[in-house]
């Protein structure tokens, strides 16, 4: 019966062929480490966020007079409302953890390099959408942090040349963040996840065209690929299990770890809390914003700090294949950059003080410095490595492969 149904469908729609080609039989490098689990995890978090979000929207009221109380209604009255909300609020932080690890893996192993530029850029687009969604979603509980976060971030658009003030009012639909802002943020917060879903499809089409990178950083020959199922379905499931244990530890035992205490106070447009800070995932960018003593300059620097990742495929000019594992200079830069992000995050979480301003400026300089130095560093590193002779491990992977480069590129044909 099942076989008959499937063959009925297959005559009209390439179901079996599609599943085999894109999922079960999809050739995957056999040396993928657990760092390659995070794309799947991001997809899982996205689905869970959409599911919990839709069910929360059934009980939430996007009205400045009702929003705060409707959250309390969800927490106290709705069956499992507390669970839905904590899944969603913890999920937003989890989403950024997963995405940041996913990005760090891409940077470390050089997965952004040719031919994966478009894959990297669609990922960059997904990051921007994710940031927009989380920012708009954060207004919805209508607490003090929600309100002042939205007030400050919408104010950033004053940096728009000539019409800045008008743009801010247009975004808010009011002269300050108000009911109009809340309802439109809710509408967009509901819409954008489905745009993300579409962008994820594009991301996956790009992935399945160029195939997964792998820890060696080199395109493998067909014989080094294994079918996705069962090898990586199992590996993804195991990773998911580990992820869920950590995720639910927060959902069930520390749900307030990611919720600012100040957000339990209803929004009050007449009083700003003594210390406001964005959610942790925006802290490094927020620190860069604060490090520039000029409104427009700060906004430009912050925008650049997010968008500059898109330039990575061109700023990394080294022809040495392989990830940071084989590139000592690049590896050092990678770790300096990661540590610098944590420093920026710390600065962003602290109240403004002279020491913090100096530390923030230094860290911002290092942040942009690593990107600016990269084109020269990567070229020099290549020369240095070639002069010293490539390490044997890399030679074994790289040199016999080089003449067959075109062959592995066209590996789709089997």
């Amino acid at each position, binding site marked *: 019966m099942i076989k008959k149904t499937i063959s009925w469908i297959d005559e009209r729609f390439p179901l079996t062929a599609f599943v085999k080609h894109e999922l079960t039989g999809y050739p995957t490098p056999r040396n993928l480490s657990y760092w390659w689990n995070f794309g799947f995890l991001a997809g899982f978090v996205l689905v869970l966020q959409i599911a*919990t979000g839709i*069910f929360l929207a*059934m009980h939430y009221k996007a009205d400045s007079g009702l929003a705060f109380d409707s959250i309390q*209604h969800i927490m106290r009255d*709705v*069956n499992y*409302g507390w669970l*839905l909300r904590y899944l969603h609020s913890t999920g937003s932080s989890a989403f950024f953890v997963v995405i940041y690890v996913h990005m760090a893996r891409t940077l470390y192993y050089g997965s952004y390099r040719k031919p994966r530029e478009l894959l990297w850029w669609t990922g960059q687009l997904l990051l921007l959408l994710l940031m927009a969604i989380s920012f708009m979603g954060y207004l919805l509980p209508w607490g003090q942090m929600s309100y002042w976060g939205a007030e400050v971030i919408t104010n950033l658009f004053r940096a728009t040349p000539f019409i800045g003030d008008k743009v801010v009012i247009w975004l808010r639909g009011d002269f300050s963040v108000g009911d109009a802002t809340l309802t439109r943020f809710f509408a967009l917060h509901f819409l954008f996840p489905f745009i993300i879903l579409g962008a994820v499809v594009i991301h996956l089409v790009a992935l399945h065209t160029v195939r997964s990178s792998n820890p060696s950083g080199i395109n493998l020959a067909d014989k080094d690929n294994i079918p996705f199922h069962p090898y990586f379905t199992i590996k993804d499931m195991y990773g998911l299990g580990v992820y869920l244990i950590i995720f639910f530890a927060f959902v069930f035992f520390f749900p307030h770890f990611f919720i600012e205490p100040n957000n339990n106070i209803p929004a009050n447009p007449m009083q700003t809390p003594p210390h406001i800070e964005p959610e942790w995932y925006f802290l490094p960018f927020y620190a860069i914003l604060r490090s520039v003593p000029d409104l427009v300059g700060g906004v430009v620097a912050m925008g650049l700090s997010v968008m500059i990742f898109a330039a990575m495929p061109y700023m990394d000019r080294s022809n040495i294949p392989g990830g940071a594992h084989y590139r000592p200079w690049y590896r050092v830069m990678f770790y300096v950059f990661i540590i610098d992000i944590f420093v920026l995050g710390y600065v962003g979480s602290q109240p403004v003080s002279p020491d913090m301003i100096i530390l923030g400026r230094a860290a911002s300089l290092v942040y942009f410095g690593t990107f600016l130095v990269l084109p020269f560093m990567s070229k020099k590193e290549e020369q240095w490595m070639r002069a010293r002779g490539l390490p044997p491990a890399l030679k074994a992977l790289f040199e016999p492969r080089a003449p067959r480069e075109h062959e592995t590129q066209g590996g789709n044909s089997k």
Partner: protein
Amino acid sequence: MSGSDTIDNPDRRNFLGKITTAAGVTGAAAACWPFVSSMNPSTDVLAKATTEVDISSIPPGGEHTVAWQGKPVFIVHRTPEQIKAMESKETTIDPEADDKRVVKPEWLVVVGICTHLGCVPNRDPEGGWLCPCHGSMYDASGRVIRGPAPRNLEVPVYHFESDTKIIIGKKI
């Protein structure tokens, strides 16, 4: 993981595969429960499940409509003549004795929703109700005497807290 295509004990592997699938499906189904449950009435809605009505001000022959769980409930103080007429009358569409439909004969309590398609019937001066949507008619006991309604007006669960107070939605 070895290159060999043979499996030592295929039954054992099939069993493990099936039991893993079963555990996964059970877990996924259980994970759906909080989502399904969240769509059920929340506690503040359930708090509206009973309605307390003071009936002392309803004169004989008078009718009072109250909201119970968001639905209209007709409370009629029936006159002795109406009680007598209803007790001796039998209906054909949904036969039911009048004394089965009341706790005390002088008080009729029925949900004011037509059993056809859910409109609220209007009070008929003669003592019954007439549905404005499709013309169903009910007598002074809330029993249907003309279609298209298939059943009598529903009698909600209720009890007398005292002679002048009833609680709808709860038995004793």
